[in-house]
């Protein structure tokens, strides 16, 4: 009874919050003010060309910029490139750059910087770009100071989706050319073209950015200062927001149940928008090199044995949606038309029995993803469920170091992982299913050893398609096969909630959300 009342109140609060949000949006932007945020965990480095973890992007997104950004509908939008054209054969991409852009140290920004970034810096240091560049790019040139031309070897349908901050941050050539990128002292004093400059980074405490007076968008940014605070304890982070120490909580900053509580506070609004480009999708990775997971029926049974809805509700407190397959439902080329795996323990047991598999003969090592409490709870739950089928499961506790090592060495039975979609299956999805991507030594490929030539073929077809329809058809067919064979055990699509005080305006505008340059954000007085 009590609980129901609480739920109702929450719903009412939500409704109010969204209505009021629209009402205020009409206000005239005010200049000035400080925005307090949280960087969690503390980024190791702010040089975004060397590290593209979430918190790094969050902070560095205000310092560095990329050629493009993407709307919540995943359509490309201008950033440092003000316009672009694609040739009809899909092989020539021409970008025209913004005018009067300067680096934070006063040096002018030009097409040379873009060419250096694409051809030298990222080719060496960016694990995703170097693959794209090697596979598809023929040449990168700067025919004019404000023009960059990419010539491809073969068509790549996802190419235009690969230019946001995490995939293609622009690096100042004058600071990095001819140096050892990793030990370059400039890494500690990041120089970008963005609306804010790094003033101070007190490690373990905060990162302080200040307004870039020479920013290329006239009159922007509105804000004077940004603070990204380092608060390692999640309960403390919730307290910080409650006490008004910080104004914004990014998805993952606080635990799911805290979100439920915090969005009910007055003067607070929230949105799940701003993650469309990444659309993180969580899955179980089952090593198919040996029994029991080499048998697709075992994988199917396990899918039936896990109440994914329970996980979303009780582990992640509703901040998610049960996933149906490899592609997130919010992204391009998604199809719901795949085999479903409802929670059904008896059926799971029956599948195993029919297949003649005796679960008690198998010892499964379950390696949790060492990303925090909720992930641990999920591992514990999954262990219980699999044990109900009769398997013996041992949780193998590892830290981040151990996890990536074991995964990279294929030394695991069952683990969890999640993937960013990066706007196009060719960028974020295919890598987990292609047999060519079974590469020892990296934790983010097809580590489960899923091999199906037909699927390889379909992904290749889609990636090289010039027409959207061809790609869609191929992807849809691939999804059906992959889901039937349970190449991975998809659990749920993360729905990250951004929470902020209502006085903060224009916070989430695009599909990359808080990583977006905050040159349009302002605080109402």
């Amino acid at each position: 009874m009590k609980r129901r009342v609480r739920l109702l109140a929450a719903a009412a609060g939500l409704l109010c919050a969204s209505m009021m949000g629209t009402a205020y949006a009409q206000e005239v932007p005010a200049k000035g003010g400080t925005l307090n945020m949280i960087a969690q965990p503390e980024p190791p480095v702010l040089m975004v060309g060397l590290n593209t973890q979430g918190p790094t992007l969050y902070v560095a997104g205000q310092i560095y910029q990329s050629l493009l950004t993407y709307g919540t509908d995943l359509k490309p939008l201008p950033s440092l490139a003000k316009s672009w054209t694609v040739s009809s054969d899909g092989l020539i991409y021409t970008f025209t750059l913004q005018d009067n852009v300067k680096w934070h140290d006063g040096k002018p920004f030009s097409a040379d910087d873009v060419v250096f970034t694409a051809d030298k810096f990222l080719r060496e240091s960016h694990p995703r770009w170097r693959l794209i560049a090697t596979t598809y790019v023929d040449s990168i040139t700067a025919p004019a100071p404000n023009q960059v031309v990419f010539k491809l070897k073969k068509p790549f349908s996802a190419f235009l989706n690969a230019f946001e901050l995490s995939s293609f941050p622009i690096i100042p050539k004058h600071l990095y050319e001819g140096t050892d990128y990793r030990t370059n002292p400039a890494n500690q004093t990041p120089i970008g073209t963005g609306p804010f400059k790094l003033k101070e980074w007190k490690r373990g405490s905060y990162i302080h950015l200040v307004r870039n007076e020479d920013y290329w968008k006239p009159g922007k940014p509105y804000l004077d200062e940004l603070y990204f605070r380092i608060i390692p304890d999640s309960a403390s982070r919730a307290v910080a927001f409650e006490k008004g120490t910080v104004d914004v909580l990014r998805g993952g900053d606080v635990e799911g149940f805290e979100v439920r509580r915090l969005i009910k506070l007055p003067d607070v609004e929230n949105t799940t928008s701003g993650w469309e480009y990444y659309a993180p999708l969580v899955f179980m990775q089952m090593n198919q090199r040996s029994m029991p997971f080499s048998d697709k029926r075992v994988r199917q049974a396990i899918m039936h044995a896990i109440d994914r809805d329970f996980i979303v509700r009780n582990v992640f407190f509703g901040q998610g949606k049960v996933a149906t397959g490899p592609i997130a439902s919010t992204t391009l080329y998604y199809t719901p038309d795949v085999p479903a795996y409802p929670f059904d323990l008896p059926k799971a047991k029956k599948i195993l029995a029919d297949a003649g598999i005796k679960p008690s003969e198998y010892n499964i090592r379950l390696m949790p993803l060492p990303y925090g409490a909720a992930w641990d709870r999920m591992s514990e739950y999954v262990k219980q469920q699999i044990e109900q089928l009769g398997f013996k499961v041992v949780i193998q506790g590892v830290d981040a170091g151990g996890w990536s090592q074991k995964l990279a060495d294929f030394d695991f039975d069952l683990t969890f992982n999640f993937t960013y979609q990066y706007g196009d299956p060719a960028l974020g999805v295919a890598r987990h299913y292609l047999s060519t991507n079974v590469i020892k030594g990296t934790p983010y490929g097809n580590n489960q050893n899923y091999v199906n030539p037909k699927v390889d073929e379909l992904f290749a077809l889609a990636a090289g398609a010039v027409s959207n329809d061809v790609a869609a058809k191929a992807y849809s067919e691939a999804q059906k096969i992959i889901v039937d064979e349970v190449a991975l055990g998809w659990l749920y699509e993360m729905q990250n909630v951004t929470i902020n005080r209502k006085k903060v305006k224009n916070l989430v505008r695009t599909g990359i959300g808080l990583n977006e340059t905050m040159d349009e954000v302002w605080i109402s007085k």
Partner: protein
Amino acid sequence: MKTLDFLLQRLAKAILVVLGVVILNFMLIHMAPGDPASVLAGEAGAGDEKFIAQLRAQFGLDQPLYWQLWTYLKGVLTGDLGFSYRNQVPVMTLILDRLPATLLLTGCAFVFSLVLGILLGVIAAYRRGSVADSVVMTSALVFYATPLFWIALMSVLVFSLHLDWLPPFDMESIGANYTGWARVADIAHHLVLPTVTLGLFFTAVYTRLTRASMLEVMALDFVKTARAKGVPKAQVIRRHVLRNAILPVFTFASMQAGQLVGGAVLTETVFAWPGIGRLMFDALLQRDYPVLLGVFLVTAAVVVLVNLIADLLYRFVDPRIEAAS
């Protein structure tokens, strides 16, 4: 032995100990499974084998172990503690950045626990068998038995969330830009909870130790002499018992200095204190070996230094030592 002589000998020994700690830890840490290069690659978003090999070469991880140790030791001798794989900063910079916060916290906790512990221990010993004694000793026992992290959580719950008296995290009000005394006051305000939390366990230890030591000294002959001289009891305690009794407490406390750093790992995590305890824990999880080694090196050096200072003080306070050694 002359003090200078003693100092040189102890210094030589201290260097040996620190060196031993470095080598021990180096071996230990490199025995670990888990490869920093693959962690780095993971953080970079992904990575193929070539990419990882390239990272490995960059940080000298492809060299044989003894060679890595040799390179590291050479660096240490010139004050170079290596380069953090992950943060891409010299380890020394990283540690120097964080060390003051930890020294402040552990220093305050040390003084807090020592002063309070001795005070309570003296009271308990002086009023042996009284209600005050039972109260002090029982609470000391309770704090001795309570996990530090639990006290931390509970004190945040009570003093920050419910009563709103004290800030639950951070070292100072960020962005407030206090200067001068206002800043000192601000930091002091933030210091209270972590200091007390970290210090309580040690307070309990010192209370028990002081009481035991007091009682032991009170049973010695010279205390009887003092009483035979007609010295009032309070003065006997103050002048004769206390000095003799707290010497062993000090020695023990100086040896415990390192344990405070261990406790700081927990305290700093709960209170978002920007010190080396947290740095160590993060470095550990990320397999950032140079940072981990650096923290151990610096901690060992600090501990050895504290011990050295304690020994010197001891020689100053207790005239027998110089003659005995």
